[in-house]
């Protein structure tokens, strides 16, 4: 039988919301009508991390591959008729340079299968080597061997803190107890982060396999996957995958005849950011309110129901099967001294390509932003800062763009690796406003248990708020520093300890901007509305008149060749003109 061609359709959350199901149905119909059903098979795959939906790949029976982006139902007929029947790819829909650039700078280990295999079919996973690692671990390695291999690989936790995974496992196994547990932390609560979701939706078996291997290594009887309830597709796919793995005998009693028995339970999260913190997560699984408790004792000693428990992040676990199959040496060949392997980032903000990128540890921020990121998105707005590590990460300025991405360097710079949120900010961003924005998230998500976080963050927020309103006073900056560092030192859990980071780093790297707000009552980026004067800087203005055209209330009078005049009694301070002006001439 001749090889069949394939049509891959990305159907993760992003693909589905872009209409992938409808496109898929239409394609099926069209192939059928055109008599191509037995030459091309349609295959559902996960998202690839780039927002170009609907994204489809056509792989011809002899293995050539074309990628189409932004495909809609209306394009289906054309693609089938032109490309599949006439052999003429539809040029206007083919993925362009951006797409290529986005993937070129990446090293996709964790995301390898995302967008390539059918996440709802265990056979597809097995066909690319899935569950080989489990077989190898159970049949050829002792639990200690597994731990040693993971330790030797240098894998560190991808959930934020970066604790060496092998060491964590070894500590946990070292505690005598009636039973032990292992938990996969799939609570991914950072706004903007979706790497764990993509893995769960695109390659759930790799996480399950990693979890079983972890269970074997530490001697656990049961594993849990604690997944955000806001991830219905991931939950659905995990359920399917767990059932399939159970049917295949990868989960259950006496797995693959090894004598090792292990079950996995899927738990839906309680819908709070702090539930991703490991002790809060444990409380939540135990049926209590998800509130952190102080460590030590660490979960590895006393975790779920008091038993030694390993908690690992989705991405951490997804790395495990790959390390077991390819060896520690393979993994540690990539990265820096302290940080091995790759890291997935959710690249967002003012860059051309936003989405998930996986890069080797040790590449610089600049390489990331201007490589896969494709550089700045808005013409005329230069790079200003990156916020790395999610809402409790830090803002790093241009001068630090050559900082290598590894745990130590980022921490030293005042940011954190976090779970891998990375937001690029351009000149149109006010750093006080940014700090306030991130803080508003942690203020709302503080669990309310300890005082510095519950009350202190609100007080920090209030000061930022008054600065952005032009009501800042002498001493506010010092107060932010004092209170921010006090919270960092005294809060109980990671949320409170890191929540002041955006404030502290922006004060550290953009102090002048704060001072401008307080002393000059001016927002240099033109963001803080109460501080804006809506004046045209005649030194900068090129008299193009674009501002007059965008003003929704007609408050700007302009005649060709002259400076525009803003009628402040009409102005509603919507900032349309400021954003429109190519020369940043309006303030």
């Amino acid at each position: 039988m001749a090889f069949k061609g394939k049509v891959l359709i990305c159907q993760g959350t992003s693909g589905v919301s872009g209409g992938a199901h409808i496109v898929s149905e239409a394609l099926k119909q069209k192939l059928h009508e055109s008599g191509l059903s037995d030459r091309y098979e349609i295959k559902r795959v996960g998202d690839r991390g780039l927002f170009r939906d609907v994204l489809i790949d056509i792989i011809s029976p002899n293995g050539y591959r074309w990628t189409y982006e932004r495909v809609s139902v209306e394009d289906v007929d054309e693609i089938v008729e032109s490309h599949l029947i006439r052999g003429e790819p539809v040029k206007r829909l083919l993925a362009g340079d951006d797409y290529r650039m986005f993937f070129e700078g990446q090293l996709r280990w964790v995301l390898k299968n995302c967008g390539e295999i059918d996440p709802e079919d265990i056979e597809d996973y097995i066909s690319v080597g899935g569950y080989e690692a489990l077989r190898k671990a159970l049949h050829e390695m002792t639990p200690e061997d597994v731990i040693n291999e993971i330790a030797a690989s240098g894998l560190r936790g991808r959930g934020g803190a970066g604790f060496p995974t092998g060491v964590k496992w070894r500590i946990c196994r070292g505690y005598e107890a009636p039973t032990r547990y292992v938990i996969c932390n799939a609570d991914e609560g950072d706004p903007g982060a979706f790497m764990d979701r993509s893995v769960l939706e695109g390659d759930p078996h790799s996480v399950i396999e990693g979890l079983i291997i972890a269970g074997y290594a530490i001697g656990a009887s049961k594993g849990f996957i604690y997944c955000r309830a806001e991830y219905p597709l991931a939950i659905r796919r995990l359920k399917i995958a767990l059932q399939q793995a159970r049917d295949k005998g990868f989960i259950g009693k006496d797995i693959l005849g090894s004598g090792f028995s292990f079950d996995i339970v899927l738990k839906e999260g309680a819908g709070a950011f702090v539930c991703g913190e490991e002790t809060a997560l444990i409380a939540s699984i135990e049926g209590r309110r998800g509130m952190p408790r102080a460590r030590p004792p660490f979960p590895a000693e006393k975790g779920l129901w008091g038993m030694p428990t390993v908690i690992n992040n989705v991405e951490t676990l997804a790395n495990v099967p790959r390390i077991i199959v390819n060896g520690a040496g393979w993994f540690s060949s990539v990265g820096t001294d302290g940080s091995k392997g790759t890291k997935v980032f959710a690249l967002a903000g003012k860059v051309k390509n936003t989405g998930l990128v996986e890069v080797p540890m040790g590449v610089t921020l600049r390489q990331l932003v201007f490589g896969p990121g494709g550089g700045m998105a808005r013409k005329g707005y230069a790079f200003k800062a990156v916020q790395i590590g999610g809402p409790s990460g830090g803002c790093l300025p241009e001068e630090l763009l050559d900082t290598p991405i590894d745990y130590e360097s980022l921490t030293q710079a005042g940011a954190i690796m976090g779970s891998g949120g990375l937001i690029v900010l351009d000149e149109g961003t006010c750093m006080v406003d940014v700090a306030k924005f991130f803080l508003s998230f942690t203020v709302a998500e503080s669990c309310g248990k300890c005082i510095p976080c519950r009350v202190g963050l609100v007080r920090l927020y209030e000061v930022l708020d008054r600065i952005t309103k032009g009501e800042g006073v002498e001493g506010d900056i010092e107060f932010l520093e004092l209170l921010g560092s006090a919270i960092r030192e005294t809060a109980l859990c990671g949320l409170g300890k890191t929540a002041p980071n955006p404030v502290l780093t922006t004060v550290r790297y953009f102090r002048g901007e704060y001072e401008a707000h307080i002393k000059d009552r001016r927002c240099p980026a033109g963001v803080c509305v109460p501080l804006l004067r809506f004046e045209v800087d005649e030194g900068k203005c090129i008299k193009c008149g674009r501002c007059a055209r965008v003003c929704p209330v007609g408050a700007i009078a302009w005649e060709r060749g002259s400076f525009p005049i803003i009628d402040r009694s009409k102005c509603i301070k919507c900032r349309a003109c400021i954003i429109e002006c190519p020369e940043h001439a309006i303030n």
Partner: protein
Amino acid sequence: MPAVYINGSKVEAKDGATILQAALDAGIYIPHLCHHPDLEPAGICRLCLVEVEGRGIVASCQAQVEDGMAVWTETPMVQKARQISLELLLTNHLGDCLSCPKDNECKLQEVASYIGINEERFKQLRMLAPQFPLDESNPFFLRDPNRCVLCGICVRTCDEIQGIGAINYAFRGFATTIATFGNKPIVESNCESCGECVVRCPTGALVPKNYRKPAKEVKSICPYCGVGCSIYLGVRGNEVVFVRGDKDSPVNEGQLCVKGRFGFGFINSPERLRKPLVKRNGEFVEVTWDEALDLVASKFSQYKGDQFAAVASARCTNEENYLVQKFARAVMQTNNVDNCARLCHAPTVAGLNIAYGTGGGTNPISDIDGASCIFVIGSNTTVAHPVVGTRIRRAARRGATLIVADPRRIELFNHAHVCLQQRPGSDVALLMGMARVIYEQGLHDEEFIRERCENFEAFVESLEQFELDFVEEVTNVPKEKIIQAATLYATRKPSLIIYSLGITEHSHGAENVLALANLAMLTGNVGKPSAGVMPLRGQNNVQGACDMGCIPASFPGYQPVKDGAVRRKFEKAWGCRLSEKPGLTLVEMFQEALKGNVRAFYIVGMDLAYSMPNARMVWEALERAEFVVVQEILMTGTAKFAHVILPGASFAEKDGTFTNLERRVQLIRKAIEPIGDARPDWWITCEIAKRMGATGFDYSHPSEVMDEIARLTPSFAGMSFARLEGAGIQWPCTSPDHPGTPILHIEAFNTPTGKGHFSPLQYKPPAEMPDDEYPLILTTGRSLYHFHLSMTRRVEGLLALHPEERIWLNPKDASKLGIADGDKVKVISRRGEVFTRAKVTEDVAPGTAFMTFHFYETPTNILVNEALCPIAKTPEFKVTAIRVERA
């Protein structure tokens, strides 16, 4: 023992201690707010921060000491961090300390004055949040969220100590508050009003209502149930204004239930009896003590012998009970003396006596903590014995296996691993069924049975009858559950059995007790720590009333009246002849009175007209009696039948001892003068005796009575008031240097052969079974908020929490009868009828109904069958066939 260096000086710390504990123990203060010694550390307030060399700033309430650790409690960094935490804490705290009830006792004030605030910065931080409404719904305490510092002590108390979790954190971030489920007023939650959270709250956020600070405190024992919690009475003038638990007591470790903590209002109630009363022309008139006592003495002189009966009080002290039986036996020349144990735990005394040789619980309450398995049957513990109930909940929370068997779905079901909802009256079948499973699976303790027990073969033979199919049929409990419960009980050792009136108040109550005794012996669970059987005695001194010989067949210490040597000992001591004929038991006294054989009653502190079965029969008997003396603190339903009422002193007004359910004899102390003209009961009994010309009733203080008890009672031989200071002594205590006996039967049983005696048993249905005319089974019990009748109804708050009777009906039965929740209904038995309202609830199984007996308005006991257990003569309160109609 790790040694740490705190501020440079070496401190020896306990293993596993936190830095804070180690420092406080060494007299070094570290400010702290959310720490409470009874609770797990939480690390909330961040005021206890210290600097540990090499680790930086840590919360000392959580960090454990390590050998050689260097801790600095007052570095500039620490001070700054603490100060900022404190300022943040105060930013939105209501600052009107002077009008706060906790002023001067507030821990927030204490830490604030120690740490101090930076005025400048504080001004910047200060921001008063909007005022939140108070929660005044609970009658005993107030919740003021505006004074709350969210330390979580209340939340942890309710969870860790009380085991309920009625309150928790709610919402997030700055909006976080402490709330009940659904943020409802606290009375609408599952809060049990125990007040444990209130006593621990460091601020004015949780305060007792109408709190008045006591001027002094007097140590005593709670007057309600048989747990015997140790308390401090807070006294102001001649009034008891506050009660708190005694932290040093092994019985309750400071804990109290709602009645013990808040139910003291009856002591100074305006309704207390203040003068002796004599009934003239159907009206009570006040008389002097001389008049009353002379009248009683002259009348009683006419009824000597078996035409007289005395009912002793399970509310009164051991000394008073001793005197009542001494009076009955020595002065009135009859053994007709009994007490309310006849209505509750006489089957325990009889049953455990047959099986083990001692009619008391085998193990101390604190043994609950160490049990691997706890089997609770026929006890709604969290309601009737709340402080033991919370201990059980805590044990289950800690990981002990909890098996609960009860016809009703009681609160403990929520915490149990196995729940068995057996049909009322089917306990022997259930327990023998379990025994059979254990025996057949080979889970019995052969060595224990061989070495320590007798009559095992006959017992095994009697298991024959208890095929599991038959047991399932009789008990309505699925076989699998019986097997599960039996297996757990037999394998999770040590296993402890806890039971109460659900076992005893049956026409075969003693057999139920024997079935439990069998089960414990079968698995070798006797004579060991955290094992055994623990009967939960009903009233504060019901154990003592029996111990003191207020039972018709025994002198104090269960010395039989039939035993000639014993009799001669007492005759010599008391200087009189004593009857060898065992007297009448409680129900029999009234049955005989109806026949005219008993003609005079001396009733001390018992509201028997409403607490005995077939109440109408009792009323008739009382009416028929020629002379009835009632000694009481409040006007009761029984007192109304009296010819003379003698006002007694409450427990707060006298010295003496109570004996709790674990045989612990504990001192109560006079805290206030008797109310009005009331007199201690021991004085009254002695006065009557003396006025009848008796000798041997000249005591100047109850301690002299105890000395006499000790002389005459081997198991009390080592007791004296001096020795009872502190936590009391558990009898047997046979000599002045004997430490008491927390656990019975360690070496041998107290039976004549020294062996534990197995009893073969047969299943017998209850005396009354449902039929077409009376299709439902009524079972009775207690409410958390009431005790019997007279005391708790004088406490406004308790009445508010539970104002009236309700008959619980299963929705299936209710709908068949066309009855909706809250409907007025008529409840009819073969003996009478009462009116009440219905509570429709799944908590009773179809075919069964439940009522309490706390309300004079609804005298439930009119309905109840007086069928007696042939061995213990205890009536069947727990099974009455009834019919319910809409009214």
